[in-house]
């Protein structure tokens, strides 16, 4: 099973949902990903501008608390886990997914890299305005029946579908 190229989305989804058990029991928090960007970004930015640590929001996220650094480790671990799974299945990827040539109507890697940077920027800017992403609001918030999270997830899909229909070519 570890060497399969793909699991059923239902098996994988159950596996991911079960990760809430250690998150709630051991760390006393819910699965999430986007606040780790503030933690890492805050530390990196403080090397250039130490005064950023006087910003309460940054100070709260870079503080040496279990929750902050647990999430940084979680997000870093995702890259390791995906790498291991990929190696075990023997799958090979292009440097850029072939769908981008269709979606963007251009095969230029530099165009894709520029768009990826800009997309990453607005993705995290939006996630921090909303105070959560597809993990924190989506997986965790909806499962907890949180009203604000459900609204946020509906907005994410609305924004995502709108952008996909208006800005990208059909893949």
């Amino acid at each position: 099973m570890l060497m399969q190229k793909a699991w059923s989305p239902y098996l994988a989804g159950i596996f991911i949902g079960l990760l809430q058990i250690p998150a709630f029991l051991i760390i006393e928090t819910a699965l999430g990903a986007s606040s780790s960007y503030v933690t890492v970004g805050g530390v990196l930015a403080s090397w250039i501008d130490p005064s950023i640590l006087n910003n309460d929001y940054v100070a709260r996220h870079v503080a040496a608390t279990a929750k902050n650094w647990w999430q940084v480790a979680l997000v870093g671990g995702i890259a390791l886990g995906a790498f291991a799974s990929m190696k075990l299945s023997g799958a090979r990827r292009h440097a850029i997914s072939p769908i981008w040539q269709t979606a963007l109507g251009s095969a230029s890697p530099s165009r894709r890299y520029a768009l990826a940077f800009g997309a990453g920027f607005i993705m995290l800017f939006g996630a921090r305005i909303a105070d959560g992403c597809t993990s924190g609001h989506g997986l965790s918030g909806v499962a907890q029946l949180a009203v604000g999270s459900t609204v946020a997830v509906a907005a994410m899909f609305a924004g995502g579908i709108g952008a996909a229909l208006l800005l990208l070519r059909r893949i």
Partner: protein
Amino acid sequence: MSLTLAIAVGLVMGVAFGFALEKSRVFEPGIIVGQMQLRNFIMLKVFLTAVATGAVVLAVLNGFGFVRLQPKAALYAADITGGLILGVGITLAGACPGTTLAQIGAGYRDALFTLAGGIAGAVAFSYAQPSLAKTFLGEGGGKLIFTDLIGVPYWAGALVLAAALVVVLVALEKWKPWRDEMGGDVDGDLPHDQGYPAGAILTRPAE
């Protein structure tokens, strides 16, 4: 809890998370963009299954009093504004903040730019946060969950949600079997009935 232990737990959980994300293929740009173009429903299947599982898990853990819920505050203006912007970013990145790292692990080079952009976006937000918090984006209520609105225990509502999601997932699978949505290279890049020639793309040599 010590910081070292928290980091160790995070790493182990992250490896498991990344492994499952990779096996589910939900981190593939073809599957995320395909979902947003309403062409591929793997993302919704993984997402709703994980939500249903999480709801059952939390119904038990919270129902028996082992854990407290950790819902975020309901800040409607921020949830809607931020959610819309985040959604646009997800589509153009072909990733979300967590799956960006899975893409890096799987070898997608553009995901390194998504990550760098994401960190820059988080820093830019941090600088803007003190001012933004004073605008309409800072307005909202407390931590609100649906079952409190109607006065039933959380565990009951969570189990109802999970049951409803199972019904939705069964219908979704009947309508679009997941095996038909993977594509030849398990990346959601499906053959086209018309229009753009998928073959030309599939034969592009690896860099």
